[in-house]
């Protein structure tokens, strides 16, 4: 061990290479607390999104059921903005953590070049878990950021990789917290809590080396300060604010959509955004013409086929409901159509546990299930019209599901069949 220590490689492995007077356990702790808050929200809403897909119902699982963790509870059918809020938080808070993750990595980068590489088996194991933590957080953010911009540069299935990456992330974050809590507590006490945030540049000094439980962050040969510790946190905060300025408008929707400078979901022409156009659905236009299209209802008391005119002759209901996409954008419109529970009643499916919705579109989640609660929820519609006109082809003509609280991808367009199952 001694011989290895003596043969310290040059460059970043040398003591004295890293000179920022700001690095130290207090700064890392302060950045880490903000980062932790953001990551807890992002991870929790991410797992909530997984539950919102209701993977236990027929057709809904993207992650094969035998590979999935157990589902603790079903997704509620109210309030209407439930998924818009959880997924809006997931995407936007996730984006806002990026600058804090970069600041955190900057604050601890000397540790990447620590020498010897492992002082003990415990140190080796700990570095392994930190490699998983850093790797999984970068992986989660990179795949999430790429997916929200529909940039499919990866060979793997995004949902599966992002989900399992999250399991690795949560496990390695939990162990990191357990191990680092004493370090954080000691650094916080040594610097009297938030006191360093009030320092002016002229009073900014390196942290006392003895405040570290293990050496390596506080520089051996510090340079004069050029920024305060408060400045570092504000710099990262300015990064979060700039990123949010790029996207927040698409999550809120309405007139604010135009303020989302960098987000992919802008108004497309005169119409509100869609995830998938009619052209991309590859549905034969004849299949959705009024002459050919029939809605097939199946239930305990039999099967019925309805034309669009039959549906329009039923009691129509108006609901203002959001489409909330997994990619973090939301758009709220005025829909009208037939209540799902009225359709269920036509085939004796009032007490159905679920409705299996089959689209004319052959795609991932082209066939999905909605829960019995959503069937009985009075705002759940098979929508025929939007904003006072027939649904445009891109928005699901002849009929689409429009129900509160659920992910946009379950608001199936170009519906061909509804199966109410007891």
């Amino acid at each position, binding site marked *: 061990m001694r011989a290895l220590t003596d043969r310290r490689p040059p460059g*970043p492995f040398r003591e004295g290479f*890293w*000179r*920022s007077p700001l690095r130290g356990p207090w700064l890392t702790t302060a950045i880490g607390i903000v980062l932790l808050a953001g990551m807890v929200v992002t991870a929790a809403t991410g797992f909530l999104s997984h539950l919102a897909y209701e993977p236990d119902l027929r057709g809904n699982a993207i992650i094969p059921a035998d*590979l999935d963790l157990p589902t603790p509870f079903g997704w509620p059918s109210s309030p209407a903005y439930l998924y818009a809020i959880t997924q809006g938080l997931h995407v936007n808070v996730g*984006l806002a953590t*990026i600058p804090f993750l970069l600041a955190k990595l900057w604050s601890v980068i000397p540790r990447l070049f620590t020498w010897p590489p492992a*002082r*003990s*088996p*415990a*140190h080796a*194991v*700990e570095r*392994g878990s930190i490699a*998983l933590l850093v*790797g999984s957080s970068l*992986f989660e953010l990179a795949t999430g950021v*790429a997916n929200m*911009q*529909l*940039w499919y540069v*990866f*060979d*793997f299935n995004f949902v599966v*990789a992002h989900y*399992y990456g999250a*399991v*690795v992330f949560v*496990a*390695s974050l*939990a*162990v990191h917290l*357990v*191990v680092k809590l004493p370090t954080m507590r000691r650094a916080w006490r040594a610097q009297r809590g938030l006191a360093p945030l009030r320092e002016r*540049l002229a009073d*900014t000094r390196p942290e006392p080396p003895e405040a570290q439980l293990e050496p390596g962050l506080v520089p051996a040969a510090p*340079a*004069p*300060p*050029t*920024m305060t510790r408060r400045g570092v946190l504000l*710099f990262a905060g300015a*990064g979060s604010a*700039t*990123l949010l300025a*790029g996207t927040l408008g698409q999550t809120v929707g309405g007139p604010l959509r135009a303020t989302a*400078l*960098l*987000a*992919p*979901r802008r108004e*497309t022409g005169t119409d509100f*955004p*869609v*995830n*998938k*156009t009619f*052209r*991309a659905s590859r549905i034969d236009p004849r299949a959705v013409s009024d002459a050919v299209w029939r809605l097939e209802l199946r239930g305990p008391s039999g099967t019925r086929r309805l034309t669009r005119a039959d549906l329009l002759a039923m009691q129509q209901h108006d609901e203002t409901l959001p489409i909330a996409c997994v990619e973090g954008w939301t758009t709220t419109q005025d829909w009208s159509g037939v209540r799902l529970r009225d359709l269920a009643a036509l085939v004796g499916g009032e007490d159905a546990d679920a409705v299996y919705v089959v689209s004319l579109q052959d795609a991932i989640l082209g066939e999905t299930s909605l829960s019995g609660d959503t069937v009985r929820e009075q705002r759940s519609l098979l929508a025929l019209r939007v904003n006072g006109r027939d649904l445009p082809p891109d928005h699901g003509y002849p009929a689409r599901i429009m129900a509160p609280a659920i992910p946009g991808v379950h608001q199936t367009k170009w519906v061909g069949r509804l199966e109410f199952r007891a």
Partner: protein
Amino acid sequence: MRALLRRGYGASPVHLVAHALALALAGWAILKVVDVRAASNIAAWFVGALVLHDLLVLPAYSLLDRAAVRLRVAGVAAVNHVRVPAGLTLLTLLVFWPQITGANDGDLRYVSGVEDDGVLARWLLLVAGLWLVSAVALAVRVARREDLGGGSPADQHGA
């Protein structure tokens, strides 16, 4: 037993148990979905990013930062007026790379019907705005002769 563990392993039993549990869960998750094609793809990205960062990006931003630290306008340290807008420029470029470069245009246009709506132009405006705000703030400080930078220019070093 405790002393033996500390001598042989180098940390407390809590450390060992916590790592055993966490690594087991992470290992399970990785093994559940490991797929040779995807694994090699992930490894290629990971190693590529590591090499790119350590050999290219890290020396580049260290050198640029050292240069910026020496920058003074009328005796006022200008370093943070360069650092902050430069950092925000790079951050937005990194995060919105597919949008700004149009790398996602094909999927966005075909799948979602979004026409190219000038993200590049809006990003350039945003960045110009950031640099402008920073320059105005510097001008105000020069006018007030307010120097927040410590030390003489000669002994300023970044990294």
